């Protein structure tokens, strides 16, 4: 992972930034896509990354900070190699999301919002991911995992290196 304290995009990434900016009537529209790009590269959006991205958009760092802190998918501090987000909204709650969350707390030894000491997994509880037909469900990095049981959760967690 490149250093989030000293951000600098590669020429290819800068070209991608310009391509994204060109898709919108005002280049500012590309701010969220570029922040996604930055988070992919640096793992999270540090204050330094905010400032760097602000420069690419001729925006104030304060504006970018306001945006970053508004959305749940942008991490403001370093996260684990994997992110496990369990839905705790109504349909999942009805189908025992609490049991799944409790099982993960025991299994990982951390509470929601925390990262395992080995840096492997950041564990979160989140609002509805709109896969209620598979409740209880969770998001593991980019993919959805549903119809969870403690056994299924164990095998998914074991697969995360």
């Amino acid at each position: 992972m490149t250093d989030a304290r000293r951000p600098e995009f590669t020429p290819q990434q800068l070209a991608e930034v310009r391509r994204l900016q060109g898709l919108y009537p005002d280049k500012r529209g590309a701010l969220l896509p570029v922040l996604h790009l930055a988070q992919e590269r640096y793992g999270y959006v540090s204050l330094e990354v905010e400032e760097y991205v602000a420069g690419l958009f001729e925006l104030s760092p304060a504006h970018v900070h306001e945006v970053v802190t508004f959305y749940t998918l942008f991490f403001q501090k370093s996260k684990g190699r994997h992110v496990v987000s369990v839905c705790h909204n109504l349909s999942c709650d009805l189908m025992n999301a609490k049991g799944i969350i409790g099982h993960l707390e025991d299994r990982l030894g951390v509470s929601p919002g925390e990262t395992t000491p080995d840096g492997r997994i950041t564990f979160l509880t989140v609002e509805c991911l709109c896969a209620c037909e598979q409740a209880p469900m969770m998001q593991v990095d980019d993919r959805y995992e549903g119809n969870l049981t403690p056994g299924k959760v164990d095998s998914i967690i074991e697969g995360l290196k």
Partner: protein
Amino acid sequence: MTEKIFTRNFHLADSHTLTRYRAQGGYTALPKAFGMEPAAITEEVKKANLRGLGGAAFPTGVKWGFIPKGSTAPKYLVINADEGEPGTFKDRYLMERDPHALIEGMVIAARAIGSHTGFVYIRGEYVKPWRILDGAVKEAYAAGLLGKNIQGSGFDFDVVLHRGAGAYICGEETGLLSSLEGKKGWPKIKPPFPAIKGAFGHPTHVNNVETIRAVPHIIHRGAAWFASLGTKSQGGTRLYSVSGHVVTPGVVEAPVSITLRQLIYDRCGGIRGGKKLKAVVPGGSSAAILTPDEIDIQMDVEGPKSKGSMIGSAGIIVMDETVSIPGALMVVARFYAHESCGQCTPCRESTGWIYKMSRRIVEGKGRKEDLDTILDVAKRGAGTTICAFYDGAVGPYISYIEKFRAEFEDLIRNTTHA
């Protein structure tokens, strides 16, 4: 059973590909639409009695008609794929299993309103739907179905996929537009309405995925046919997302004349484990809760309204007799407290305080006056904010307490210090 419209290709393994979509008759409405005057397309959608299927149920053709005509200034078509209403998951299926139908609907809608640029705002968590739709957009460009001079029609239309970053409020159309413009997703004061001053300051039309997905069918088979599938208040079939304590949860397509009872017992196998129904949310978590004696209603725009609720996003959450309604209210209240964007004081403050009160009731620390305080705060705040978010939160606050008050009072009475 009536024929399938939205779900007709869902069972095919390669339903997301251009080849399969074409083999199933896809992209045949497009040349027909190119042969029609834009105003005639809008008229057809009006006559079809298509309602917005994202939550607000506004007549789609009427909304299209709000976009100013004659001006050469840019106009934008924005698809709201920021599916987020708890209990709803239909748009995920539509994007994963029939993405070309959305693209075809977008091109037709764009022609009707005179737009040459479309944005699809997809919630950031929907990585798989985004990848599949992105693949479909690339296929459509390669086949001349998007871009310049589409199918020799002289009509140009580009599609940009835009990923959100995690915020329920961006499903509210002006919050979505703020987010699309690279800002936090704060809703905007109306007027001006997006049709006059929307994305990047230009006339903008926003429709839900499912709504636009209905358009090719209406053009292909006619407004009269589509209207005849529904009721007087609304044409067509629609997708119901059914979750909770039913035997077979999932996406169900049905004519809007279907009753809530039929959806639960005939289409989803009834209550799991032979248990009794205790309560059901008919239109996503912002819809008022219904009791078992209120489920003989048609699931169109008017049915849930007749019981003081709303069809909303048609996300149906079924609760069996084991469910604690105060516990359910706490979960729902936590959601609204978390997702309030913080712009308007009544919403920012009330959602937080109501969550705290609902939590202490569940934790056995409830006070006698809490229920009336929640009801009072809920009723005073409704209608005082920039967007409909708080009105949505008020739906569950009031209905859960008013319909199940004894259960809340039992919890409070049994607390140690109350």
